[in-house]
């Protein structure tokens, strides 16, 4: 039987990337709890408004799509302040307890990404009790008026419960202005809202599909897990929701009691500043030298073309791109979706089309990690090793991440890196260590699994700031051709961490129990 999820129990941001559902803007607000009992009353009020994953409709008995949404999550300290019993607290994962700041060495948050350069709110977090981030509240809206309405509602509650909770300011590197929230919105290009970030790439096309997700079957191709017969199946629910079987047919580690964890999950909140001037200059410089030209090079950085997200595996050069574009223009919505997401690296094992250090190959290698080079094969070539594992996606199915969030700020002057612009990325997974941290450490900031030495993800990598050992990456070519691989040398730091932390996203049931103070693991 097809898996049915209790959509009324799961928070809406777990199932939906709101940006794709007509909510182009949001505010993320962070709270400190001063008094536990008042904090719980506040959470109780919030919970009444929390948006679930339920499917919307205008028919009789259906729940209407709201004009604005509310979602809530907690840090470890937050759960402590809400007085969860110790025997529940000790069941949370070690990474969650430690928090993002303490995990900087694993995450590669060094140099300009080090915590001492983060936004004030994240610098003070886990440093001074009265500035600890305890609660995260996300307000997404269909338009600016509704966003104001939502924020007014939240501020009203803060006022009502001011004895016990306060909004934390400092969502910027300066305290003036205080920045009481993190503002995010889609990037507008030529007056049209887009799904792009500030470097010009379309974000999160390959967001995972898991069992029980509404309308998952239409979107599963290229987003689920690749099967040996070339088809796609949804990933196990337990990769993204606690209390459900994961890809190992086990329940992911979770705190007790079961009701606290079930239908809940972990969220990684990360603010990433984008160095647009450095990016443009680097692309311009190498674009002039790269034989395929600037736009193909930009596509090689990520694995997709900037104008429409066409994957390099399907459109590896200008000629094939024209054919792809014609197909895309002629396709219906489902066809367009398949063209953009339904691909594998099976015919690109040597990285000639999508390089090993391209962002989408690093973040989601699909079945491409089961690669092998035998003595006697063409130098530089890799091929599928069909005997390596039971399933072809064995090395990537347990490293997937749901990606939520939106860009923030506007790029007012592309010739400058500073200014307020970047993306807020929120990654949802059942196991922060196995999923987010592994991908960040092993695939984004290191290249060994891709047989790429210590080359990093071109876009996201924490590229060396030491001129003695600069970062590089290789753009592979067809090993059977006479073409020379292209070396990207002295790659600068394109993306810089500005803060973040690890959060627990409870189910609606758990939220109500937390608010009532009735979590009881005995």
């Amino acid at each position, binding site marked *: 039987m097809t898996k049915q999820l209790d959509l009324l129990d799961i928070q809406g941001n777990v199932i939906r990337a709101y940006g794709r559902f007509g909510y182009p803007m949001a505010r993320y607000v962070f709270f400190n709890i001063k008094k536990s009992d008042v904090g719980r009353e506040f959470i109780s009020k919030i919970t009444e408004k929390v948006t679930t994953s339920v499917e919307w409709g205008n028919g009789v008995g259906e729940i209407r799509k709201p004009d604005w949404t509310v979602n809530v999550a907690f840090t470890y300290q937050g759960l402590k302040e809400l007085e969860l019993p110790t025997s529940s607290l000790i069941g949370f994962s070690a990474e969650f307890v430690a928090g993002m700041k303490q995990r900087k060495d694993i995450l590669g948050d060094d140099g300009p990404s080090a915590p001492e350069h983060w936004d004030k709110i994240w610098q003070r977090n886990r440093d001074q009790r009265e500035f600890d981030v305890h609660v995260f509240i996300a307000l997404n809206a269909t338009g600016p008026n509704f966003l104001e309405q939502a924020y007014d509602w939240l501020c009203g509650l803060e006022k009502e419960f001011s004895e016990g909770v306060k909004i934390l300011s400092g969502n910027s590197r300066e305290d003036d202005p205080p920045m009481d929230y993190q503002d995010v919105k889609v990037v507008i290009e030529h007056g049209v809202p887009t799904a792009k970030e500030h470097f010009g790439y379309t974000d999160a096309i390959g967001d995972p599909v898991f069992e029980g997700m509404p309308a998952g079957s239409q979107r599963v191709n290229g987003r689920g897990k690749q099967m040996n017969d070339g088809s796609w199946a949804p990933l196990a629910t337990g990769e993204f929701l606690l209390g459900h079987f994961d890809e190992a047919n086990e329940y992911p580690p979770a705190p007790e009691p079961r009701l606290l964890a079930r239908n809940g999950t972990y969220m990684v909140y990360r603010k990433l500043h984008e160095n647009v001037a450095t990016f443009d200059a680097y692309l311009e410089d190498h674009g002039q*030298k790269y034989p395929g030209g600037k736009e193909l090079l930009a596509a090689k950085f990520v694995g997709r073309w900037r104008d429409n997200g066409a994957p390099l595996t399907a459109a590896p050069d200008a000629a094939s791109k024209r054919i792809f574009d014609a197909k895309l223009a002629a396709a219906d919505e489902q066809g367009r979706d398949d063209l953009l997401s339904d691909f594998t690296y099976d015919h690109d094992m040597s990285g000639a089309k999508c390089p090993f250090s391209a962002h989408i190959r690093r973040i989601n290698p699909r079945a491409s990690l089961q690669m092998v080079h035998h003595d006697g094969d063409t130098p530089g070539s890799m091929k599928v090793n069909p005997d390596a594992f039971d399933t072809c996606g064995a090395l990537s199915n347990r490293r997937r991440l749901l990606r939520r969030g939106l860009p923030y700020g506007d790029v007012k002057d592309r010739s400058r890196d500073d200014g307020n612009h970047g993306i807020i990325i929120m990654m949802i997974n059942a196991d922060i260590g196995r999923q987010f941290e592994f991908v960040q450490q092993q695939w984004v900031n290191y290249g060994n699994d891709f047989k790429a030495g210590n080359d990093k993800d071109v876009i996201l990598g924490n590229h060396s700031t030491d001129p003695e050992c600069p970062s*590089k990456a290789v753009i592979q070519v067809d090993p059977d051709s006479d073409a*020379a691989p*292209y*070396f990207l*040398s002295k790659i600068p730091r394109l993306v810089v961490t500005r803060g973040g932390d690890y959060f627990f996203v409870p189910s609606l049931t758990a939220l109500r129990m937390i608010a009532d103070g009735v979590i009881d693991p005995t």
Partner: protein
Amino acid sequence: MSSNVSGNAYALTILSPIKNSYTHEEIAYADVVRECLQGWNMEKNSPMALVPNTYLCRYFVLDDVVNQSLPGAGALDTLSDLLPLVPDWLRRRALPAQDRLQSRYLVFASTFHGDLDTYLRGMWEAIGARIKEVWKYCYGFEQVDSADTFIAYMKRCQLQSALFFVGSNDDALDSQLKALYLKQEFAKFAIDNQGRDATTIRQHMQAFLQRVDPTNLTAPTWPAGKYRLTDEAAS
């Protein structure tokens, strides 16, 4: 002892019993050995980096054997399950005694290139004084005063390495270090010469080959073993 060998790699396992005694400061010899080895970690580089052809090595002090679980009483356990008539005291009496070590041991495990005698001789010649620092607390080590007696002593302490994995190719260490050096230098060369015309690249290649001297294993190359990237010892 072919089981210690895989290709040109040799897996050495040494267990030397530490004397059951203590210093003037009333610290057990085994604890002094451990402290001494921990001190090696804090040096700028491991003394073992000076020992030729060491691929990977490890030292530790074995305090006692680790028990995975209580031992079983064999057939009597099954019998007592099937026939509860077997009294529990009888079943318990049939349990084997738990294994214990008679002393604490210094364990040295190393995988290296080449044959055992050459390796141990090289080790004695390179770091004889450092070896004494640690091994002088072990039974019988007072008889060691030369490379030959060291080799004989180590062979008496040797255990067979039946199962091991060498995460390295079969070449001597200096060849491997030179190969790594050449690979890295060549990557830099490729970056520096990207886009240049063939004549220039050929000229630069000649200069490059002269500089990196591919057949010279002694220089330029990477030094063996490196704890940390900076030259400063840990404070």
